[in-house]
């Protein structure tokens, strides 16, 4: 962190502002130069953007204070001395727990349930929508947990990553043939959604810690790849979820 010399407590605020800045610039350029119409509900938009900035800053600040140091030291501890069974259990729990708390996934699952209700695929009651969204998130979390187990096994056994990825792709292609059309888009999207704010730092810590504690493993090349699995398995599992639900 050598970019800016600011008090530590302001760093998350600056980061989330910087995350939003490109969006604000692109959108306002288009509004002013291309569309040339005022945005409806501008006040709500500005309030919402303020909320996003405050929320994301607090969220990241909180993660850095509590979850990340503990999670990372635990990941290292398990990677170093854990028995295989405990290590795999921890890997699964870490993937599952971080995915359930992932903000982008919460948002997308909610949106998906609204779309499904509007298309009368599920009941349009608040209850049914929440159940659908929660089901989606638990499915994704389960698949990320399994992906991290697979990734940890790969690091321990030294399996080559590309064969696993190729196998994963082939599975996805086969399942797509049988999945209902309505779920395919959400399934493919969920692969990219799962891995952002919380999951990546903790899971990478586990991977790199594991690779550096094993003999003959290079943390640079073997520590990565966990995220890749975590973006593959949700696609399969959400399609299976769709086959069950629809």
């Amino acid at each position, binding site marked *: 962190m050598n970019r800016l010399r600011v008090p530590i407590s302001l760093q998350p605020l600056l980061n989330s502002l910087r995350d939003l800045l*490109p*969006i604000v610039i692109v959108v306002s350029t288009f509004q002013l130069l291309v*569309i040339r119409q005022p945005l*409806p509900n501008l006040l*709500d938009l500005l309030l919402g953007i303020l909320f996003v900035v405050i929320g994301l800053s607090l969220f990241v600040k*909180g993660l850095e204070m509590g*979850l990340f140091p503990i999670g990372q030291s635990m990941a290292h501890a398990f990677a170093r001395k854990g028995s295989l069974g405990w290590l795999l259990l921890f890997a699964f729990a870490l993937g599952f727990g971080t995915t359930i708390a992932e903000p982008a996934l919460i948002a*997308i699952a909610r949106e998906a349930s609204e779309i499904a209700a509007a298309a009368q695929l599920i009941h349009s009651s608040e209850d049914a929508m929440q159940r659908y969204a929660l089901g989606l998130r638990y499915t994704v979390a389960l698949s990320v947990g399994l992906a991290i187990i697979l990734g940890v096994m790969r690091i321990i056994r030294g399996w080559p990553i590309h064969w696993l990825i190729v196998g994963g792709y082939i599975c996805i292609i086969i399942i797509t043939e049988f999945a209902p059309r309505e779920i395919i888009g959400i399934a493919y999207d969920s*692969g990219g959604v799962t891995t952002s704010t919380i999951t990546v730092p903790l899971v990478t810590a586990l991977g790199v810690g594991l690779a550096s504690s094993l003999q003959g493993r290079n943390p640079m090349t073997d520590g990565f*790849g966990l995220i890749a699995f975590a973006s593959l398995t949700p696609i399969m599992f959400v399609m299976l979820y769709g086959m069950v639900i629809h």
Partner: protein
Amino acid sequence: MNTLLGLLHTGMRTIWDLLPIALIIFGFQFLYLQRPVPNLKKVLLGFFYVLVGLAFFLEGLELALFPLGKTMAAQLTDPEFLGIVHTENIHWLDYYWVYAFAFAIGYATTVAEPALLAVAIKANEVSGGAIGIWGLRNAVALGVALGLVLGTWRIVTGYPLHWFIISGYLIVLIQTVFAPRMIVALAYDSGGVTTSTVTVPLVAALGLGLAHNIPGRSALIDGFGLIAFASLFPIMTVLAHAQIAQWRAGRQPLSSPEN
């Protein structure tokens, strides 16, 4: 007042979202590692921040980013804005501003993404300097931008999503065979990290808005998929970039610790 109530409501629900990770962290700490949590006060305060932050963030999404994506989609596909008289047969080329917006938003958000910078620095280290930091960031941002253009074009035309994604996989598979080995895991990882928490909702809303506004499309079948494009294309561009870097370096295989 309504906003405040919404915030409280979201806050209550957020507790359930954070419960699993809290249980896991504290559970493993006490049961397996059998250590007290260091700095317990600070950790609990951190969890409180995470809770409040998540509630604000989700409310902000509903207020700003989702409506913004949908409004942009509605405005950019408005026949009046595009100067279209006959709405029954619109050519996909008529929606050129949609593609321009998709490209701009994809490029701008990716190039500024901090997670990508971290990946680029690692790639630079792994490749022994052959892969430049700026070159890689540029390539990935271009990949996301092109991915979103193709993704919006697919929504406009209504072709099945899996044709595109599966062909994309096949290209990635072929690239994997020829790419330097130590970049492979990193390239696959880069697909997931380029779409940040802020970009995902906006892009999703854009897709849903497009599918809603373009005649003959359904939000359920055509609306999703943009994020998939945005996560797949960076893998291609990172692999391509590594291949070009290797080729430029005189066709000498980059040293790989695995071999």
